[in-house]
């Protein structure tokens, strides 16, 4: 199976020719990206105001995350995400209010009742599951989720999200190995932003990217430009088809930039050079997406402004509502330890 080292970028021409993503899809994806960006910025603000305890920003990852959801079937597939998936959650249908309740730890937060960090827990509607902060644990769990589908003969795909950092964990190895042996319907979706907090790729692996390891598990591995929604869409689509048709797992590595420090507790100037920080701005997926839509004449200036204005309005309203919601009561504190409790 081929490992593509150089990120693969789809030209607008080729993508128009393939015709697999409609203009409507592209615009919808853009709308989600904008919403994610506006919301993300708001959360940083709330953090700086002392209202949101922690933020792990998705800025820079938006294109990859939205395209991955678009390439799968949120009505039936499983999504085991990690903590940097604001765009994924919006693309899966969670609202800015849902998410703000998480960041502000308010009552009725849908994923964990504000028991967990923002964006962590599980949803009762779409099957998104973001259980742990312990990096890498979702990977064997994803193999188990897929095993259950395979045993029941259900044509569902399990998408498991992880960073370049998580790829160093033993659990990553064990999960990929098992999925390979049993040809499980898993898409291993690696968001490689070149850093695990402060540790650069060169100190995480002696190779250029995680996809090079796929061959060692008997599965295909590709590396794509994570700012290119079409490239990501195509790669995930192919991997999901393969999985759904019983041909086993794949590894899709998207190269992205983490445009902000690791979390609101971090300061990346301690370990990134000024050049690196400046350079990564060129990989901001929002202007790249806007340029793509512009080249295809899908987005007028007015339309663009309307989308941003709408996102801001929504986030404003949601912020007000979330701030007006109380913290969860401690009364239910002992509930859900065991089944009967």
């Amino acid at each position, binding site marked *: 199976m081929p490992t593509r080292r150089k990120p693969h970028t789809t030209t607008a021409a080729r993508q128009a020719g393939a015709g697999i993503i409609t203009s409507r899809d592209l615009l919808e994806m853009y709308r989600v990206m904008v919403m994610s960006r506006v919301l993300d910025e708001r959360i940083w603000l709330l953090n700086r105001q002392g209202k949101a305890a922690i933020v792990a920003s998705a800025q820079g990852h938006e294109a990859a995350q939205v395209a991955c959801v678009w390439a799968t079937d949120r009505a039936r597939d499983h999504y085991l995400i990690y903590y940097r998936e604001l765009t994924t959650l919006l693309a899966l249908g969670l609202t800015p209010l849902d998410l703000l309740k998480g960041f502000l730890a308010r009552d009725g937060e849908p994923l964990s009742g504000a*028991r967990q960090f923002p964006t962590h827990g599980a949803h009762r509607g779409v099957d998104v599951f973001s259980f742990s902060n312990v990096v890498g644990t979702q990977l064997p769990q994803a*193999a188990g989720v897929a*095993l259950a589908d395979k045993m029941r003969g259900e044509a569902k795909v399990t998408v498991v999200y992880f960073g370049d950092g998580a790829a160093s964990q033993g659990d990553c190895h064990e999960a990929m*190995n098992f999925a390979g042996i049993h040809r499980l319907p898993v898409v291993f979706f690696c968001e490689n932003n070149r850093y695990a907090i402060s540790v650069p790729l060169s100190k995480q692996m002696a190779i250029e990217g995680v996809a090079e390891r796929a061959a060692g598990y008997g599965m295909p591995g590709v590396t794509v430009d994570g700012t290119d929604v079409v490239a990501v869409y195509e790669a995930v689509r192919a991997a999901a088809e393969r999985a759904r048709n019983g041909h086993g797992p794949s590894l899709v590595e998207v190269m992205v930039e983490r445009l902000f420090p690791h979390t609101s507790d971090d300061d990346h100037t301690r370990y990134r050079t000024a050049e690196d920080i400046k350079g990564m701005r060129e990989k901001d997926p929002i202007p790249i997406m806007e340029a793509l839509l512009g080249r295809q004449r899908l987005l007028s200036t007015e339309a663009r402004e309307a989308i941003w204005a709408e996102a801001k309005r929504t986030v404003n309203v949601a912020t007000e509502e979330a701030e007006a919601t109380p913290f969860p009561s401690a009364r239910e504190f002992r*509930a859900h330890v*065991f089944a009967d409790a």
Partner: protein
Amino acid sequence: MAVKTVIEAVREAMREEMRKDPRVFVLGEDIAERGGVFLATDGFLKEFGPARVIDTPLAESSIAGIAIGAAVNGLRPIAEIEFADFVWPAMNQIVGEAARIRYGTNGTKFVPMVVRMPYGGGVRGGLYHSQTIDVVFAHQPGLVVIAPSTPYDAKGLLKAAIRSDDPVIFLEHKRTYRLVRGEVPDEDYVVTIGEADVKRKGDDMTIVTYGLAVHYSLEAAELVKDEGISVEVVDLRTLAPLDRTTFLESVRRTSKALVVHEDYHTYGVGAEVAATIAQEAFHDLDAPVTRLAGPDVPAMGFAPTLEAEFMLSPEKIATAIRELAAY
């Protein structure tokens, strides 16, 4: 009723539940063709096929993680860890994850899995085939921890565990596998999780124990009977959630308590039992709560002399009984 061994009881519990419920399946090392190193799943591959009897690679963390994922997605995995000594790599998935998923998702997801493992010494297993690892699991809220001593309890509790919607750690003392025999009903039954059992009635003191040590304690009680010491033996059976009522009720009556277990003394299961008795039965005690446990050395030795020094025995327990009786 037929007389069975512990390993037979374990095997039958799984087989019957697999026959009844297609969601139940087994996974682990060497459990398919080999039927498990202790033959707990002997014949399963043939009866249930490779989809439900899965030989995994040698990778315990993923065995637990895969079981969690399958459980969250509607199945009822029974994972076998070949020896309890090898569960350490899976600790993160079990204690870090499985125990907290129901709580951390506010009840949305839950983990109906069973992790079975043979544990304990007295089999010339040396440092890495003798460990008792119960308290690490029992300390973690969200995990059910079961450690049966008889074929009857093993079968009834394992069936209850498989049907439970919570993650269950099922500890089987490997020395009991073929050594301990007992009557097991032919019809379907379960033993309720979380209930201790009085295995012998007595008046002068209460031994609180579990696993292989139950049998050693019963033997010790026989040894001292003719000396006029009447010993009650409480088998905890479930270590978490801990049934405090049964042993407190017993100690309140006998006024003396001896807590016995094979695992290390310090910070062991016995500490919680002793502390509970000391707090809750303070005014009923005629003597300090006494503990007899494994020594605080890193592991059981391989040479028979070293192993015997580490292990409990009916004689060691009888000595502790006599001392406490004389208090």
